[in-house]
């Protein structure tokens, strides 16, 4: 650890109150690597969103409608009335600064407007200047300003430099959630046709086809069958999952990244191996073929529309309940919004009850949908899985709490419980970087695009830094997570900051450790892991 400079010399008066005025005079500079490409005209048209056109944030003229001021102020007024939290967050901040240094983008970039308090202030100052009397009278003195085109540009820049991770809200004494301010900012920008392609194109594909990449039903099916061949190579099992099968007990929905992206596919193989082990009566859907929901990063209405297909499909197929895969923001939607925006659940659905252990998942009484980690943790707790954790001995594992499952639904223990049973070497990262204080991967809320690489690497530094610590201290070489965006984004992040560490999903490790009856009797022997690499490289028998 660095010892310098001496603290007593440095604790000169530091004022944590954000600057009252001068940030308003700092115009935003659009530097490459710090903003995402705008949505394509066709995509905006397809979605029926306002103002489809060719434009670029790098242009002087953003081609927004001439009555843009009215549109935004009207939109703001509507939302202030509709969402009490938004109104509250605009009114109650006391500028204590507790949140100021809690955002990973601020920590990595040093840009003051990435301090949550200032990010919210970009909106609050307009609220004050346009909607409150003191703001109208005292202007800047009251921290108020008028809405200009410059402000719109600034909103675009900074509301797409917030990953909606909610870390700041954990530290705010009033519970102000800057993430929700960002959500409002993005909704208002949509009214003018200001948005990013990385979010809207997947949204379009979800709406028209069913998943982010726009894979057609036959491609979804073929991809998954291909994974089954790989599973056969490793385990000898011939798995034939069913698709769109009516009358199955369970509908399983995973983020689509799990059946085409690396390393997500190994997690998907993990789910399939587990279900085969249990002989579970489940089906996959080529229509509800996406657990992810970029509608969450677009607008409440869009989130609702995209999520509806899961209940539609559960109803059409007549299943009893739904299991969802390892996805981050998907679970924020299920946990916080599904019940109110898409509920009540179709009447054929029942309170989820594990067919193996008989456990009734009361907390999902209303949504009828449970997380696969809850399901698996329950199996392990009841001793229903024969596990050989030594099969994962080449890994020293740590766990990244993805923002949404951790802060969005308080999901801390289940994945850790599973990991501790399926591998022998598990070490948590330092306390102030995990669980509810976890650091974002830097690529959340639809910002995991390559043109945003610099910001992603900066924003991900606090996370990577903690991983590096356990890598050096305990030899950690595998970062497990339960989020498809993380599996992709953390891989890149690790490659930049700590290249010795790989990334995997929890169920990849579960499947590696799972001992099938034939393997137990010695009739079959498992020598490869799901990545088709030797389980124990040093073991001669593996070669």
């Amino acid at each position, binding site marked *: 650890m660095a010892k310098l*400079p001496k603290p007593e010399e440095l604790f000169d008066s530091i004022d944590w109150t954000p600057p009252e005025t001068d940030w308003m005079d700092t115009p935003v500079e659009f530097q490459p690597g710090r903003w995402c490409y705008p949505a394509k005209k066709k995509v905006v048209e397809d979605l029926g969103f306002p103002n489809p056109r060719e434009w670029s944030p790098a242009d002087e003229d953003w081609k927004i409608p001439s009555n843009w001021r009215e549109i935004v102020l009207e939109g703001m007024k509507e939302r202030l009335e509709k969402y009490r939290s938004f109104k509250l967050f605009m009114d109650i901040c006391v500028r204590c600064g507790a949140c100021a*240094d809690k955002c990973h983008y601020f920590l990595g970039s*040093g840009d003051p407007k990435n301090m949550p308090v200032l990010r919210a202030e970009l909106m609050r100052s307009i609220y004050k200047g346009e909607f409150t009397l003191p703001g109208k009278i005292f202007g800047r003195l009251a921290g108020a300003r008028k809405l200009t085109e410059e402000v719109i540009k600034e909103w675009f820049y900074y509301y797409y430099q917030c990953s909606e991770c909610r870390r700041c809200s954990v530290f705010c004494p009033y519970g102000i959630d800057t993430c929700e301010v960002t959500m409002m900012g993005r909704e208002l920008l949509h009214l003018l046709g200001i948005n990013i392609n990385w979010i809207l194109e997947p949204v379009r594909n979800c709406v028209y086809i069913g998943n982010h990449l726009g894979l057609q039903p036959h491609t979804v099916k073929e991809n998954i069958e291909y994974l089954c061949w790989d599973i056969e190579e490793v385990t000898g099992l011939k798995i034939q999952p069913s698709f769109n099968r009516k009358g199955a007990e369970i509908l399983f929905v995973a983020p689509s990244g799990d059946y085409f992206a*690396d390393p997500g*596919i190994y997690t998907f193989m993990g789910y399939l191996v587990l279900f085969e082990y249990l002989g579970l009566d489940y089906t996959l859907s080529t229509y509800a073929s996406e657990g992810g929901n970029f509608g969450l990063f677009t607008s409440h209405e869009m989130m609702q529309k995209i999520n509806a297909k899961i209940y539609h499909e559960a109803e059409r197929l007549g299943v009893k309940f739904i299991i969802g895969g390892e996805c981050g923001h998907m679970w924020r939607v299920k946990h916080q919004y599904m019940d109110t925006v898409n509920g009540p659940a179709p009447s054929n659905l029942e309170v989820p009850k594990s067919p193996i252990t008989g456990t009734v998942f009361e907390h999902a009484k209303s949504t009828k949908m449970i997380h696969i980690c809850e399901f698996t943790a329950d199996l392990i707790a009841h001793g229903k899985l024969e596990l050989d954790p030594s099969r994962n001995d080449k890994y020293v594992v740590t766990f990244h709490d993805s923002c949404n499952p951790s802060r969005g639904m308080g999901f801390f223990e289940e994945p850790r419980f599973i990991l501790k049973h399926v591998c022998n070497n598990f070490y948590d990262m330092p306390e102030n970087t995990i669980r509810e204080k976890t650091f974002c991967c830097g690529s959340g809320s639809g910002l995991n695009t390559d043109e945003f690489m610099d910001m992603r*690497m900066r924003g991900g530094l606090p996370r990577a830094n903690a991983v590096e610590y356990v890598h050096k201290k305990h030899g950690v070489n595998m970062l497990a997570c339960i989020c498809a965006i993380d599996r992709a984004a953390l891989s890149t992040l690790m490659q*930049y900051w700590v290249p010795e560490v790989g990334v995997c999903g929890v169920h990849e490790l579960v499947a590696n450790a799972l001992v099938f009856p034939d393997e137990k009797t010695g009739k079959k022997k498992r020598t490869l892991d799901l990545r088709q690499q030797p389980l124990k490289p040093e073991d001669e028998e593996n070669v």
Partner: protein
Amino acid sequence: MSLRELLTEKRDDILQEWYKAILDTYPKEAAAFLRRNRDRFENPVGQRILEGIEGLLDEILGDFDEKRIKYFTDRVLRVRAVQDFNPSVATGYILALKKAIREVIEDDLSPELWSEFLDLLDKIDEIALYGFDIYMACRERLYHLKVEEWKKRVFLLLKRANFIFDEREGSLPQQ
């Protein structure tokens, strides 16, 4: 007293000056934070910079081990390579050490120390050159990662189409 002894004696002051010069390249709110928070997990940028410059100065005063010098330079530049800096400003923190040293030892720099002083400046230049390499390697890595990420993103589609040279296939037993 040799220059090395003098610098060793004033090590802390030099580091202080040097750190200050680096913080000046950040917005003032950020500089205040980097300075204030001493937690290596909550303030990774500040702590990496401190680790990097302290390590470098100790190498300059000590063994001048190439491997360790590169490591400490990397600690700082890997961060600055993704921040809002031009290449010159990002790497310029190394040359800022010259000024920091001059400021601290100016009054004690007698003529008999000059030749040692010139050697010292050469050493700092040498580190700056390593710095350019490291900065470039970081930037190149980012571009490389952009491509890799795209391949990973649609990995299975590429694999099914036989478009991937996947070295992991090598671990498969012969068909």
